[in-house]
């Protein structure tokens, strides 16, 4: 009996020797975060429709005009300037840097490419949707006209259309001229020149991770983008599909070259 009690005492003392501190593993739940960048400005509104020849009235646009000239393209998007103006998204180039500060770290990791730092690389989305009623286009005979709606000057259909016919309204040569010029391409962010990522920028984050976003507008718009005032660059952050409110400045001023700078920590 006595010796067993002694052993109990010795075992208890030995049990005290190891430290009692321990580090429990963190529970990590990965969520998807999305960053959307938009530029918004006051722009002109156009009546927009498609025009084409259809001599045989089969519903298929003819590749030639009545004089036998090859049309390229056979269907033209025609823009008619209205007196209406609207606030609408603008495809505007900007520089972008997105970093992630992982939980417990003090040095962030830049997750956007080097290309994205160039203010001509990233491009905010085009305007979409229509304004007001369907236009009633002055359709020159024998063409067929297919109304598309009242569109913002920064709608991709308008920007990509090379249509210009100053003779339709000599008093106002710009009345039948689409402001755009084809070739701006798709909206893009981050990525590389060869493989730009389509917006939104998506990244996996865990609890305690911080996403740091910096962006700055280019000084000038790309060719074919007409705005009435300088756009504001704005950012939206979604975590798990839910809009969240980051800390910092998520909307730029209207000054040329202004930017945003904000961060969000996953709680």
């Amino acid at each position, binding site marked *: *009996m*006595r010796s067993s*009690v*002694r052993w*109990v*005492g*010795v075992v*208890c*003392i030995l*049990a*005290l*020797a190891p*430290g*009692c*501190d*321990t580090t429990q593993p963190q529970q990590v739940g990965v969520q998807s975060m999305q960053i959307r960048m938009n530029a918004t400005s006051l722009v002109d509104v156009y009546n927009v429709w498609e025009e084409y020849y259809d001599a045989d009235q089969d519903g298929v646009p003819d590749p030639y005009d009545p004089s036998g000239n090859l049309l390229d393209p056979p269907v033209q998007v025609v823009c008619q300037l209205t007196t209406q103006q609207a606030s609408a998204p603008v495809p505007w180039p900007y*520089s*972008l*840097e997105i970093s992630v*500060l992982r*939980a*417990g770290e*003090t040095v*962030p990791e830049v997750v956007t490419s080097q290309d994205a*730092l*160039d*203010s001509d690389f990233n491009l905010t989305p085009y305007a979409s949707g229509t304004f007001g009623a369907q236009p009633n286009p002055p359709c020159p005979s024998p063409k067929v006209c297919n109304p598309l709606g009242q569109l913002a000057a920064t709608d991709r259909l308008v920007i990509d259309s090379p249509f210009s016919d100053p003779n339709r309204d000599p008093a106002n040569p710009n009345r039948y001229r689409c402001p755009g010029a084809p070739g701006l391409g798709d909206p893009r962010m981050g990525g590389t020149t060869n493989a730009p990522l389509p917006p939104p920028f998506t990244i996996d984050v865990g609890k305690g991770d*911080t996403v*740091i976003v*910096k*962006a*700055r507008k*280019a*000084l000038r718009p790309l060719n074919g983008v007409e705005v009435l005032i300088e756009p504001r660059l704005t950012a939206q952050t979604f975590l798990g599909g839910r809009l969240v409110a980051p*800390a*910092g*400045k998520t909307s730029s001023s209207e*000054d*040329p*070259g*202004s*930017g*945003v*700078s*904000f*961060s*969000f*920590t996953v709680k």
Partner: protein
Amino acid sequence: MRAFARWLPAVVLAVAVCGAAIGQDSDSEKDAKKAYTPKESGVFAEVTAWFAQPSGLGLTPATETGDGTGADTHPLSVDLGTANRIRTRVGYRLPHGRGEFILTWFAHEDTRTFERLSPSDFVYGEILAHPVFAGTFDDGLADGFSSDILVRMRDLRIDYYRDAFSSPRIRGKWYVGYRRISQQRDIDALYFSLAPNLPAILDPLTNGPKPGLDPLPDFARVRSEFSARGAEAGLEVEMPVLRRFRIEAGLGVAALRGRMSSEYASTTHTYAIDQNGTLILVEPPFDLLGEFIDPQNPELGAWVDQAVQESFGIGYSSNNESANSFAVETYLGFRWRVWRDLDLVGGFRTATFGNVGLELRPKNVTLNPNGSYNVQDVTRTTYDVNFEGYYAGVAYVY
């Protein structure tokens, strides 16, 4: 887990006392006499693990602010917790009851890293850094910090013990001796600005990368070293409770004199516009860094092209200042004879060392136009350190 560890030694003490009581029933009278017959002379050795927790050193690298009213601002202090450290005693008992010499050695060293990171929430007060330019926004706040802490203690005693009184119920011994201690207290702290959301320094504001404008962490270091020696005296008593089980207690005091060294260093940062060598400080929130000189002629360049991040370092030190100190040590424990001359020992011990830490902090500083500074006065804070905790171990007389 830590709360459990705090009670574990007490449980061990209880087990030991109960074990002794149970084991007592089967002891023979002969064994009991043998157990308490001290050897005429011999070598004595005792090794105990002291689960000591140092306190009172003011290890506070930062504060945490609440809703901004100030009333709920509280210090973020480091609790070093209990640490298992060995306390060793060896001695020699002179023949014919002429006393005994005992050497006691205790060393405690604890290092901790204390870190809080809360990117973009500037709630941590940089209380170690000098207030001038502390914090990215010059408000003395950071959104994270990392602090390394070192506490080191060395305690050496060489004592002469002699019987003071003796009876069947209690036996006392007085002692006098020499005591030498050294104490070190270091706190380093880095105060981060992890996500300050400063204006974006990107193209087209800059012509290419503009390194050096990401906020650098502020840094502060406070170090103190103290060593002293002196005389000590005390009294220890032993009370047999059972045939093989004794309660023991002791009290000792020491008056010490030694040398104190202290060092303080702080580096903070701020932004400035460098115009041909003349620095113009930029006021927070530094919107100027994100603006062009002339929006109508941005090709001329941006403010940010002339922006620099300036460091402001300030330090103060004192070496080998004469200082007085004291030590008070008490304990209460048991000694259980488990086999021949082998004892199990355990109990609770507390030792207080006064005036063993010094913190010097420059208070008012005059900045000169050439960038140098003059420290006009310094605040001095002294610290006591207290080690307390349970101990357990074995002792043997050869």
